[in-house]
């Protein structure tokens, strides 16, 4: 009888374990971060011993596609070789999956030690006390001797630096000179304006050539507002950063006219495209794309065509343009090994060998030394991007406060309204009022 009960107990235990199998990884993680905690406090006690002999385990998470995963893993391996006491556990996913996974981890206080962070989420995570202020590490664990203050302050929220800038991007117009010539236009001057843009669009449309493939509403409306001395979001993130709805009307009327004259594809045409390879510009049937500079190399790769870079249309380009941190590494507040995490970030942005693998994939490097070392290494298209960023450095203004916490929802709202305008479902005037009411209620919360 006793034997049988024992057997039963054993079975129940096994089944219990099996049933909880799905939970195994997370409980392991808790264990590890628990270990870290003791190590972390010890190293804090003994001052600057973080790079000493103590065993440290760091969890690091990022989003991206396969090439990025591959080189990041290589960089991690190199770092582990040079720092045998550090073990790094990578967690990576695609953009969508990444954020859907990160939020529950944050809720459970189980964020990885180092987190790739995007500008649109930086406020949300830092204001909810998920991220550590990196200010105390600057000049200590993180070497900033070759990095400009402007680049570092890209990760500023309130009084602290909550993300370390890994590279910068800037907006531009990436165009195909051959198609431009077909449309009967010689070149796009550096100081072109929105009027020139509309004029050229008309010329292209007359030849049945698309001039661009639509302006991403949230990005370019913000740019347009900046050229007028305003911003999309108020500095403190509590509302919109412009008062005159006429600005909204002007910008989106222009967008609407582009579609009407046939210079920008209709939204139903764009929705029908199966993927980026079907885009008219990629197929050599359109002049160019308004986008971020880190997308330039990809555009040339996927199309097999040669493109050139022009700035966005003016007037007041330098007020509108800014260097956008393409992504950050943040250290989570619940990390027990913040110093070790900061050291890794320093390595990632400053080490030349590591950056020969990264090759500017996370934006144009912020370290001037890395940048000059990379110039000989990179392809022609990447070199063109570096050159453009150098030009933007002299022709831009500071980015200003990071996007507020509700930014994701605002972006969806304005993109939706812009779509409705292009479909002719709503007038720019109505959309302007609509946008203001809804946006203020989202940001006001």
């Amino acid at each position: 009888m006793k034997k049988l009960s024992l057997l039963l107990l054993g079975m129940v235990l096994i089944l219990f374990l099996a049933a909880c199998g799905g939970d195994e990884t997370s409980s392991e993680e808790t264990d590890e971060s628990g270990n870290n905690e003791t190590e972390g406090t010890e190293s804090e006690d003994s001052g600057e011993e973080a790079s000493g002999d103590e065993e440290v385990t760091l969890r690091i998470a990022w989003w991206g596609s396969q090439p990025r995963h591959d080189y990041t893993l290589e960089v991690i391996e190199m770092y582990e070789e040079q720092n045998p006491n550090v073990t790094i556990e990578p967690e990576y996913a695609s953009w969508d999956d990444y954020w859907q996974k990160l939020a529950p981890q944050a809720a459970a206080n189980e964020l990885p030690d180092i987190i790739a962070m995007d500008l649109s989420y930086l406020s949300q995570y830092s204001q909810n006390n998920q991220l550590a202020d990196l200010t105390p590490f600057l000049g200590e664990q993180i070497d900033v001797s070759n990095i400009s203050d402007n680049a570092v302050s890209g990760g500023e929220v309130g009084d602290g630096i909550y993300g370390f800038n890994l590279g910068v991007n800037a907006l531009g117009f990436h165009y195909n000179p051959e198609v431009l010539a077909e449309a009967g236009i010689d070149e796009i001057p550096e100081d072109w304006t929105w009027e020139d843009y509309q004029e050229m669009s008309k010329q292209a449309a007359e030849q049945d050539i698309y001039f661009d493939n639509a302006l991403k509403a949230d990005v370019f409306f913000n740019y347009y507002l900046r050229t007028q001395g305003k911003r999309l979001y108020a500095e403190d993130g509590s509302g919109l950063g412009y008062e005159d709805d006429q600005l909204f009307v002007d910008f989106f009327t222009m967008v609407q006219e582009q579609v009407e004259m046939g210079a920008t594809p209709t939204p139903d045409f764009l929705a029908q495209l199966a993927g980026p390879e079907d885009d008219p510009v990629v197929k050599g049937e359109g002049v160019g794309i308004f986008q971020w500079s880190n997308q330039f190399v990809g555009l040339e790769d996927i199309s097999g065509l040669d493109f050139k870079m022009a700035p966005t249309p003016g007037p007041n380009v330098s007020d509108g343009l800014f260097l956008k941190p393409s992504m950050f590494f943040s250290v989570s507040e619940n990390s027990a090994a913040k110093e070790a995490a900061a050291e890794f970030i320093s390595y990632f942005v400053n080490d030349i060998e590591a950056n020969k693998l990264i090759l500017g994939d996370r934006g144009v490097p912020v370290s001037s030394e890395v940048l000059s070392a990379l110039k000989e290494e990179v392809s022609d298209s990447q070199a063109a991007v570096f050159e453009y960023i150098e030009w933007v450095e002299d022709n831009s203004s500071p980015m200003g406060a990071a996007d507020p916490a509700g930014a994701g929802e605002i972006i969806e709202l304005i993109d939706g309204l812009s779509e409705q305008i292009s479909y002719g479902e709503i007038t720019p005037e109505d959309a302007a009022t609509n946008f203001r009411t809804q946006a203020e209620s989202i940001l006001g919360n």
Partner: protein
Amino acid sequence: MNTHMKQNLWGYAFIGPFVIGFLAFTIIPIISSLYFSFTSYDLFNPPRWIGLENFEKMFTSDPRYLHSLRITFIYVFVGVPLRLGFALLVAMLLNTASRAVGLYRTMYYLPSLIGGSVAVAIMWRNIFGDEGIVNLALLSMGIDPIRWFGDPTAALWMLIFLSVWQFGSSMLIFLAGLKSIPQSYYEAASVDGASFFQKFFNITIPMLSPVILFNAIMQTIAAFMTFVPAFIISKGTGGPLDGTLLYSLYLFKQGFEFFHMGYASAMAWVMLIIIAILTSLIFLSSKYWVHYESEGGK
């Protein structure tokens, strides 16, 4: 320990895994979601009790919610009857004795096995693309190609077609139901000179009505919860112009894109109530049209 108890223990041991899983992954989440539905919860900060505000917002100040509810109703009330009709049609074709019926049955069932998958939703994008087979067929018939992904109404129809195409499981159940109708009824009707349609409406439909009821309920519930096709086909946006923003997709966006977990939980509970009401309506109506052989042909 007596034999009775021993047997019970064995029983508990075997249902143990299910009970533990059910408690941990079903009951507890259900209860917490009920609690969250009365709160404002963004995953980062502790939930804040706001009473019925979420429910109020849904029906008074969220036009996107009402829109999503509307197209979900269209999707269900157009898609489910079409799917059942199609399933019955194919089941009747397969029921006419043929040597390869086993093969056909498997073939027609295949779409249902793979239908909810990501691969099929991606394939659907190609079929309805600019140069996809559907538009080529339309073109050869002299009809202008349709921008399936660009027109909100067309995009919803595309989702409905996808759901009709996955008729396999209802078809199998219909087929079993058809096989259980005694052949003698049809023979007697033939002797009386009944036409095909008379036989269909006076024998097949009444005899099959319990099966129709079962299929209607199951398919309605499943249709309300459709998520994957809408998510993949619209690339997660619910576009164009929110034309494919089915209820679950909007719920997902509220929860995991905007971090309004409280609102999303409230939406889930409203969906549960809507499904419960619809199901009971179908049940209530059944006494007027469902015919149970065992009750003496009431």
